[in-house]
């Protein structure tokens, strides 16, 4: 087994931070006790199922649900007619963007048109899952087939079939008035592009394409809804944000948020894909009609065909450098396949494309394009991986042409504090350079790779660090433990990282904190688990809550000693009487006296931290072996270096790095939505081939700690940036191994094999 991960200990400054306690929810999750959304079971519950469109683009001329409704065991059928109408200009603002209510509603139940294979058309509730499935087959939908488009470049053409009659291109705050599938265009400019290219000694320009890929969480989407006669709706679901589900569900159903309580169950993976709602409104409508709780769980096929792939992309990049390797000019044209409704992360793609380098002259044009695929959703560093693949391949080509080491050229151009990005923002303190230096110094990079058809590749990536609202409430128990209520659903161990920041402030062991995730009625407003923000922002809220507890406990200690508050200080986990050092109470001792020290000790942290335009950088090293007979790539060795700011729980930081790496490797080599005639042909885990443990080596990790300049503990969000560089690193490694440049993801065996054959043919011809 290869070397274990290297790690750190909070820069040596902390007692709890940097240690590796067992997560508080661990035992429940290894014994099968933890209750996920799919595990909901309520008395008298009905089972719902969704009828989905078999066509990528069609007009609905009529729906006849009478036969389905008449089937024994069927209790209700709903269609778009059961949703309230929405005005064309009504919008819902969520943290991930602003969406037209008409779009959100028609994604839940299609109105006059279906816009992708898998588009929800009707929903049924029955006494058993099997009866609900039978009922779907009895619903008759009269479709008028329309021409479809699933390719992003084709969808941008003037003669492409238009998905929405009323969609016009938005130009960063201005409506162009032009009807198009291009929902928005964004442009960034910096310096003088023409001058930059004119001064360049070397210019590379290429086009890249990436396929739609899915987040691939193992737990399917689900929702259980109970709409009581008093008008109060409760939804139990797996989500990255209970308050986001509340807002979306209320908006789609046209009811106030106060009427919707959302209980976030344990969540079986999200990666950005469990931010939108897909089932809660239908389950709610069915519950309202039947007076029973209704549970809907998606089939895996539905998960693929109806929920958030990350956008497929077309990316064209041109880079210019002088002969020392200094990058002088950069231009990118980026088109993201938003799916059936606008809202791809094109802004993030445009920001991230040149984010790793100090390039004085730049131009970026980004396009958000609708087409006949499911509405895309966020996927780990949304938009960054697609553009990184292009840029990091081209940087490698420049290094090769100049005979430079691929890390040296990156270090020469590395983004640093004070650098102005192409979008105009200036970086605060960041750790781009440090990840490169650590990669260069790593034994992996220092060990030569030998053997035929083997190659090494490197790439650097970036993702931002969202702030956003978070609430934590802490209540001190008389036995010296603390109940911590927080609003961030825990996908990867965040209960632990939040509790540890709380414990650090008060000098408590991590085990003394009992963190719980609250529902929308029991915890303060908290935005989604996403954007690499939970350990950063909810951890910050825990820090604030702990400080409030500390302040209150100081008053309690003063009361206990009948001293003045100013006479009590908190030091090293103890409350101390300043003028009488004999008087010293540990947290636990003081807690045991709280019974007659007045009101309960409750601290709250409610934050909305400004998030820096800095974030987290990653550099990865990939060694591959290409089978020249088949084009199959084997990953021999893989190392991920990431700036975590401060690693709160290093094991879970490593876990994020390893998980992101594995997803990046899957994206690089074999994952894709395989389309034929507008339909996805590989909508199962068998055919949509995610990496298994047999496909991967151990994933070595190096945590770099360049503290976030604002966060009280220097935390940087680490959840996303690790997915960004693997595709480019692997592409560069394949080139190093067999001398072919792959410009389309995934780099399937047949593509590599064909490229090798072409190279051979070209060699023979010359």
């Amino acid at each position, binding site marked *: *087994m290869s070397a274990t991960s290297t790690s750190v200990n909070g820069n040596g400054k902390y007692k709890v931070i940097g240690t590796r306690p067992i997560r508080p929810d*661990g035992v429940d999750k*290894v*014994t099968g006790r933890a209750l996920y959304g799919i595990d909901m*079971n309520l008395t008298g519950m009905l089972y719902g199922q969704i009828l989905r469109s078999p066509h990528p683009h069609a007009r609905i001329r009529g729906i006849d649900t009478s036969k389905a409704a008449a089937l024994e065991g069927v209790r209700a059928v709903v269609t778009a007619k059961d949703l309230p109408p929405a005005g064309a200009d009504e919008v819902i603002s969520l943290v991930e963007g602003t969406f037209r209510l008409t779009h959100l509603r028609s994604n839940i139940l299609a109105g006059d048109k279906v816009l992708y294979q898998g588009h929800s058309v009707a929903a049924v509730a029955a006494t058993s899952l099997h009866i609900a499935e039978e009922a779907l087959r009895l619903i008759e939908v009269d479709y008028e087939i329309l021409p479809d488009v699933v390719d992003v470049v084709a969808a941008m053409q003037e003669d492409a079939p238009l998905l929405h009659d009323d969609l016009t291109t938005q130009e960063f705050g201005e409506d162009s008035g032009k009807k198009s599938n291009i929902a928005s265009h964004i442009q960034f400019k910096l310096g003088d592009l023409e001058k930059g290219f004119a001064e360049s000694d070397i210019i590379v320009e290429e086009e890249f394409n990436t396929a739609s890929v899915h987040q691939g969480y193992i737990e399917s989407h689900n929702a259980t809804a109970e709409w009581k006669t008093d008008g109060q709706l409760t939804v139990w679901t797996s989500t990255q944000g209970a308050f986001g589900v509340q807002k979306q569900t209320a908006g789609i159903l046209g009811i106030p948020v106060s009427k919707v309580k959302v209980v976030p169950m344990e969540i079986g993976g999200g990666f950005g894909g469990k931010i939108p709602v897909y089932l809660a409104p239908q389950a709610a409508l069915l519950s309202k009609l039947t007076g029973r709780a209704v549970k809907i769980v998606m089939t895996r096929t539905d998960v693929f065909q109806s929920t958030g792939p990350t956008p497929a992309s077309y990316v064209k990049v041109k880079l210019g450098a002088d002969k020392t390797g200094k990058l002088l000019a950069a231009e990118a044209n980026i088109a993201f396949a938003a799916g059936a409704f606008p809202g791809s992360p094109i802004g993030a793609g445009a920001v991230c494309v040149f984010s790793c380098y100090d390039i004085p002259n730049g131009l970026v044009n980004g396009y958000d394009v609708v087409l006949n695929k499911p509405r895309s959703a966020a996927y780990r560093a949304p938009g960054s991986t697609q553009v990184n693949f292009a840029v990091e391949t081209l940087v490698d080509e420049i290094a090769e042409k100049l005979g430079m080491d691929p890390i040296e050229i990156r270090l020469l151009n590395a983004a640093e504090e004070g650098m102005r990005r192409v979008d105009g923002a200036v970086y605060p303190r960041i750790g781009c350079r440090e990840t490169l230096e650590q990669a260069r110094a790593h034994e992996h990079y220092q060990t030569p790779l030998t053997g035929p058809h083997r190659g090494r590749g490197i790439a650097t990536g970036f993702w931002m660090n969202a702030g956003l609202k978070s609430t934590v409430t802490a209540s001190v128990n008389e036995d010296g433990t603390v109940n911590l209520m927080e609003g961030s659903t825990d996908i990867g161990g965040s209960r632990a990282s939040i509790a540890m920041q709380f414990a650090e402030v008060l000098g408590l062991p991590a085990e003394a904190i009992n963190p719980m995730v609250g529902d929308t009625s029991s915890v303060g407003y908290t935005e989604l688990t996403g954007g690499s923000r939970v350990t950063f922002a909810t951890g910050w809220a825990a820090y604030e809550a702990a400080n409030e507890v500390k302040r209150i406990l100081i008053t309690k200690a003063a009361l206990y000693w009948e001293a003045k508050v100013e006479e009590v200080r908190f030091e090293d986990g103890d409350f101390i009487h300043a003028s009488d050092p004999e008087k010293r109470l540990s947290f636990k001792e003081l807690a045991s006296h709280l019974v007659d020290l007045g009101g309960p000790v409750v601290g709250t942290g409610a934050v909305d931290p400004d998030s820096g335009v800095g974030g987290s950088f990653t550099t990865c090293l990939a060694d591959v072996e290409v089978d020249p007979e088949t084009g199959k790539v084997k990953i021999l060795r893989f190392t991920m270096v990431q700036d975590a700011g401060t690693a709160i729980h290093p094991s879970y930081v490593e876990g994020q790095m*390893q*998980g992101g790496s594995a997803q990046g490797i899957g994206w690089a080599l074999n994952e894709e939505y395989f389309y034929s005639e507008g339909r996805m042909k590989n909508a*199962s885990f068998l055919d949509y081939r995610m990496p*298994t*443990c047999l496909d991967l080596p151990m994933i070595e990790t190096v945590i770099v700690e360049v503290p976030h300049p604002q966060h009280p503990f220097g935390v940087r969000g680490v959840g996303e940036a690790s997915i960004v560089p693997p595709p480019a690193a692997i592409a560069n490694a394949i080139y190093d191994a067999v001398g072919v440049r792959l410009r389309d993801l995934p780099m399937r065996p047949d593509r590599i094999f064909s490229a090798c054959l072409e190279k051979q043919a070209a060699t023979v011809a010359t």
Partner: protein
Amino acid sequence: MSRKLYVNTTINGEEIEFLCEPRQSLLEVLRDDLEMTGTKEGCNDGNCGACNVIMDGVLMNSCLVLAAEAQNRNISTIEGLATPQGLHPLQQKFLENASLQCGVCTPGFLMAAKSLLDHNPDPTEHEVRHWLAGNLCRCTGYDKIVRAVCDAADVVKETA
């Protein structure tokens, strides 16, 4: 007209009777009828391993087994892995190694790993990876899972 079948089986050492429809899978009966939701559903077509159980010593995707086939069988599920005295070494090592993130694939991995150690108490890293290749995890990149299984094998060997 009777539409249900009577099944008598043993689950985690306990004799259990249930009625099921002929079309119901073992997974469905475990989760929806017997309320043993520790066994998870990830795909319902045998491709993710989240629903792994051990039936008469053989690792199975319970979504691919009809409930009626459980008649007179001996089935182990995640609910039976720990004892009142404590966690199984695999469970303990999963916790110590931070081998789970979202945790939804974890019961399946634990049952698969249990089955591996039952068959091969001293597996190499490659043997672990080969045996667990039928289980999908999307969070961890498998690194910490493989380490935990190897660590647990050491413990099981010592205590055997």
